[in-house]
């Protein structure tokens, strides 16, 4: 479904991402973990076309999308949420989702219909599925942090992606918010049969839902496999996890 071959990115002399290989199969939930600055966000930006790789290739469904502009990649069924919340703050929640829906349906160049009469049912349904229906008329920028993250997920879902890249979906959330968000993501991934690739620093979350985990360190993937294998990997324990005992903390 999503394949990455030998992907590298240098900023000046600094190699942020170095020769990364990665493959995510259809319907799989995969996580990329690693300490801050390991290159996770850069890797995501390379996959979604926000950054141009120095070397390597990105394949979506077998199609080479290396260096293709973000708006085109979006059209190929690859959605993304960002580490820093990334919504349209002065629009209402409904408009946020509607804009994404309309863009996905190719309605963007339509300059004569009334936007607020289009995609109404779909937008409401989508908001309901991410649990934001009560806040539909609120200005997006005034939502709580957790709700904004939910909305961001909603915007990403509006383009009906097959693959969803989530960059730290629970960053900055309280424990209960994290719990709800993860439940939401899992449910949506199941309902929509999504392929999911996400980064996360909360190990409990990662090991509870991921089918496969890649560990990055200093721009490289140092381990790759199912949660048990990664947990057992000696190098991972040394450079990243320390020798602390690991496992779901709950």
């Amino acid at each position, binding site marked *: 479904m999503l394949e990455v071959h030998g992907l590298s990115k240098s900023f000046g002399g600094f190699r942020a991402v170095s020769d990364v290989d990665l493959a995510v199969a259809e319907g799989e939930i995969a996580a990329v973990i690693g300490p801050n600055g390991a290159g996770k966000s850069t890797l995501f930006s390379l996959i979604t076309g926000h950054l141009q790789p120095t070397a390597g290739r990105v394949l979506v469904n077998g199609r080479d999308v290396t260096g293709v502009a973000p708006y085109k990649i979006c059209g190929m069924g690859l959605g993304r949420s960002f580490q820093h919340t*990334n919504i349209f703050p002065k629009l209402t929640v409904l408009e946020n989702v509607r804009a994404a829906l309309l863009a996905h349906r190719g309605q963007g160049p339509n300059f004569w219909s009334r936007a607020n009469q289009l995609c109404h049912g779909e937008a409401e349904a989508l908001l309901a599925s991410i649990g934001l229906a009560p806040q539909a008329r609120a200005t997006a920028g005034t939502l709580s942090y957790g709700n904004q993250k939910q909305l961001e997920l909603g915007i990403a879902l509006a383009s009906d992606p097959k693959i969803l890249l989530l960059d730290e979906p629970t960053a900055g959330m309280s424990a209960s918010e994290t719990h709800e968000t993860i439940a939401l993501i899992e449910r949506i991934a199941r309902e929509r049969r999504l392929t999911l690739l996400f980064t996360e620093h909360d190990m409990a979350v990662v090991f509870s839902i991921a089918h496969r985990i890649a560990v990055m360190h200093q721009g490289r993937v140092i381990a790759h496999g199912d949660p048990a294998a990664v947990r057992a990997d000696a190098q991972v324990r040394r450079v990243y996890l320390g020798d602390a005992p690991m496992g779901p903390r709950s």
Partner: protein
Amino acid sequence: MMKKSAPALVRRIPWVLVVFVAALTIPWVGSRYDTFLATQIAISALFAMSLNLLLGTTGLVSFGHVAYFGIGSYVCGILMKTYAVPFSIALPAAAIGSALGALVFGFFCVRLTKIYFAMLTLAFSQIIWAICYKWNDVTGGDQGIPDVPYPNLDWMSSIPLLGDLRIAQQFYVLTLIVVMLSLAAIQRIIASPFGLMLTTIRENPERAASIGLNVRRYELSAFVIAGGFAGIAGALFGIFNRGVFSDFVYWPKSAEVMIMTILGGIDHFWGPVVGAATLVLLNQEITSYTQYWPFVLGTILLLLLFVFPGGIVGGLTTGLEWLRRKTGRRASA
């Protein structure tokens, strides 16, 4: 339920139509001078509105918008004066000419963002100015094209009431029709999916790209549409002003229309109209007392930037909300 219906009702009212009808009475209830001012306000309002399509809707700071106003006025003026082309052809030609100009320059401008975008638009507008100032054979050079004829408005003479008006007042009626149709079209565009896409670009260009928008292409489309409407305003102004001159395209005019727009408020549809009316009236009032209008304008601008950054409409909206909250609290107490 009741609470919801009142604003909904207000939203239902076709405000463009209401404003149109109100403005239409001016030649009969006001003086010749009132009509003169109203014509100037109507044209400036359209110009400011077209700029706000970039400034307020798309978030593009164009400091060279006057270029497209100028192209429109020159195209229309040259066609009508030099080639005696009727207004009904010259006006669309002006709009198309300006839109084409905006397409060519916009292609380069949207490659840059923020202040760089502003500087590039300014640079291109100065190039247009240099062409207008130098190309004597076509544009009349520094002397411009004086005496642009009024359109043929004989058809109005058969309409009761309209027939008795002076030509300048009849032209006002025509201007008002063109301006209001344009405003209605702009309103429709802003409310359309396309308009919504432009708003997402203003809010967050990076995110807009991630929902599948080719941001540059949308920006360019907005630039072209805004240019076209500016061209219509320019064409009308050339006739209203009885001549087309290179000063139309000089950069302080870009600042002027920008001041109009933010004076009214860029976050509200009617902001530019309010701003245009305020600035035109203020200008004529103050210039009859003192030659230090620039000083006054500069001071107004400072006040605007530091005290009322939302402009007049923004300030009023905030004030009303505050009042409503206050009375609401009292009612609930």
